[in-house]
């Protein structure tokens, strides 16, 4: 397929093209060759090859006919388990038209489902077990209920290592005629946090500015993408300018769709870098914890964060 989006253009098409996860690939390859797979559970961080491997499996199993025999669902985007069940039902009604006797359903981000929804999913899996195989993927297997785990062969994906990421970058650079320095690879790897999708996106975003991928260029792109600026919010507050602090905070939260809890995390980390007395750091961290507790409990994110900013205002006066 001809696509301009690099994550798709360079998505591995065969087992051998998949980078990293060698052990898993070996086992899956054997299963696929037998033309019969059990339900599978892929667990691991984002961008480590879970969806890619699922796609390779169906392409190996069904060849050209993979599209008719494959249903991809995303639990975090579907509206509830009932919608998922209906889609599964509709899809499973017709029998597979190939030498393989089942169809494959890939349910991504299955850990987004509540425990109740997972119970329902488990029954669905049982009801259609003759005609369908499920491949579930999730970030944390601990969030998947035991009855589902016990019905699946579980595969744990690990973060990509630097050599894996490097391999991917070099392959793309060669094919897209990019000029790339060693240091740039280091920076890309760091920014990717072992997430292959992220590294490819970063590379493409950077190359859209220039095919000469320099460290400066990457840093510009990365800094744009960071839920940055929390520091600026705190600095406004410490200087006593509450109005600007909250204005900026609202801006960040709304424009970048960052949740209150993500903001709290960033604030908690940022406290260490502030130029204030250690005692105040302790008090502010304690306050931050209290506010995080209130957010978890379901209070208004913005009002609670404003209250926290007010604490920074008086901390700026050296009090608290």
């Amino acid at each position, binding site marked *: 397929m001809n696509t301009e989006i690099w*994550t798709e253009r360079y998505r591995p098409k065969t087992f051998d093209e998949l980078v990293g996860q060698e052990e898993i690939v070996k086992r899956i390859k054997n299963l696929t060759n037998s033309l019969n797979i059990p339900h599978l559970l892929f667990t691991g961080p984002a961008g480590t090859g879970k969806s890619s491997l699922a796609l390779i499996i169906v392409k190996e199993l069904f060849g050209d006919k993979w599209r008719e025999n494959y249903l991809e669902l995303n639990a975090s985007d579907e509206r509830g388990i009932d919608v998922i069940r209906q889609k599964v039902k509709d899809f499973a009604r017709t029998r597979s038209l190939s030498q393989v006797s089942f169809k494959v359903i890939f349910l991504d981000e299955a850990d987004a489902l509540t425990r109740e929804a997972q119970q329902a999913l488990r029954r669905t899996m049982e009801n259609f077990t003759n005609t369908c195989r499920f491949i579930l993927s999730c970030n944390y297997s601990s969030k998947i209920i035991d009855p589902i785990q016990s019905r699946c062969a579980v595969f744990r994906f690990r973060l990509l290592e630097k050599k894996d990421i490097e391999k991917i970058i070099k392959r793309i650079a060669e094919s897209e005629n990019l000029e790339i320095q060693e240091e740039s690879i280091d920076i890309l790897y760091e920014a990717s946090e072992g997430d292959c999708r992220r590294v490819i996106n970063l590379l493409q975003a950077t190359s859209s500015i220039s095919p000469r991928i320099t460290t400066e260029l990457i840093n510009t792109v990365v800094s744009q993408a960071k839920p940055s600026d929390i520091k600026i919010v705190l600095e406004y507050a410490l200087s006593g300018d509450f109005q600007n602090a909250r204005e900026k905070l609202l801006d960040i939260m709304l424009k970048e769709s960052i949740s209150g809890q993500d903001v709290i995390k960033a604030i908690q980390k940022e406290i260490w870098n502030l130029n204030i007395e250690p005692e105040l750091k302790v008090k502010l961290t304690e306050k931050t914890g209290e506010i995080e507790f209130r957010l978890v409990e379901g209070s208004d994110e913005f009002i609670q964060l404003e209250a926290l900013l007010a604490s920074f205002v008086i901390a700026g006066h050296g009090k608290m």
Partner: protein
Amino acid sequence: MTLTEKYRPKRFSDIKGQNSAIERVLFFIKNFPKKKALILLGHAGTGKSSLAYALANETNSEIIELNASDLRNKEQVARIIGQASKQQSLFRKNKVLLVDEVDGISRDDSGGLQELTKLIQKTNFPIIITANDIWHKKFSGLRRKAELVQLEKIDYKIIFEILKEIAEKESLEIKEDLLKSIAIKSGGDVRAAINDLQGIDSETSHDEIHERDKEENIFNTLKQVFQQLPTKETLFLYDKVSLSLDEILLWLEENLPLEYKGEELYKAFQALSKADVFRGRIHRQQHWRFLIYQNFLLSYGMATAKRQVKIGFTKYKRPSRILKIWHLNQKQKYKKSIAKKYAKATHTSIKRTIKEFPIIREIMKNEKIREELKLDEKEIEFLNQH
């Protein structure tokens, strides 16, 4: 005669939008004297007094009315209601005693309140009490003795129908969308809506019908909270404002930094954020008693944050955060629809795409990708804006 008097409902069937309250009033009358008093609770203009008058008409009763100003003291209450409740009416069989706006009784009239409570035990006739709010402690005795019926704010569609009917009968030529806008702006208050109707002619534009005097009201209240030292009265400040405590919380949030700085700001936000914690608990657990704490923190707590009385004029602003969020959500609409197309093409989720949007936006500068994802004009415009 004002239109509100002219069109005051005379019978139950004239009262719109309060069917369940009417049923409960009928139930109360049927079971009288099991409970001897009925409290009609509701916002201004929801039909509390009308309901009492309609009840009198429907039961062929004489109505004896007392309002807050009559209930000055024990003697007066005893004289008017006490006598009336013992005697039989001359011409009509029945009587209904109406105590209007009981929450207008101030603390100084607590003798009157006690007397009323005693009377409920003695009376031979049903006593109807109307109130906007009776959750104050001083009413606890009264609440125990009386049946409580809550009147809902009237839906604007019903108010619209009422206005339309009156406009027709009065041969007023007023456009329907103007009537609708009066109905919406009345905030569920039929009386206010009818008064507005009387106040306009066909030239009036929408903007001239303000959200009644709510705003002036809240401005004065904010001034008292932010500028005066706390007193016992501070606790009751919000009773006079026709906004919910949750709305008041937003007004306080918006304007607090205009008045309070430094330590005062800190203390005020302590109170505000704790009030918000109680707000959340009320919503989750439906434990309405927490309203007391929410109110306390927002009034007394907020006023206590200051060191001394403040003077001078502060230009308070209406809460802008909710509006901002709404506007941004409108814009985010395109972000979401773009993310949906992108997610589908790349085997990922909308959620994750939105999280990574700053980078993905860079990638989507590529015309070919825009074509590939079949982005529409609005979506492309959104991308170009940023």
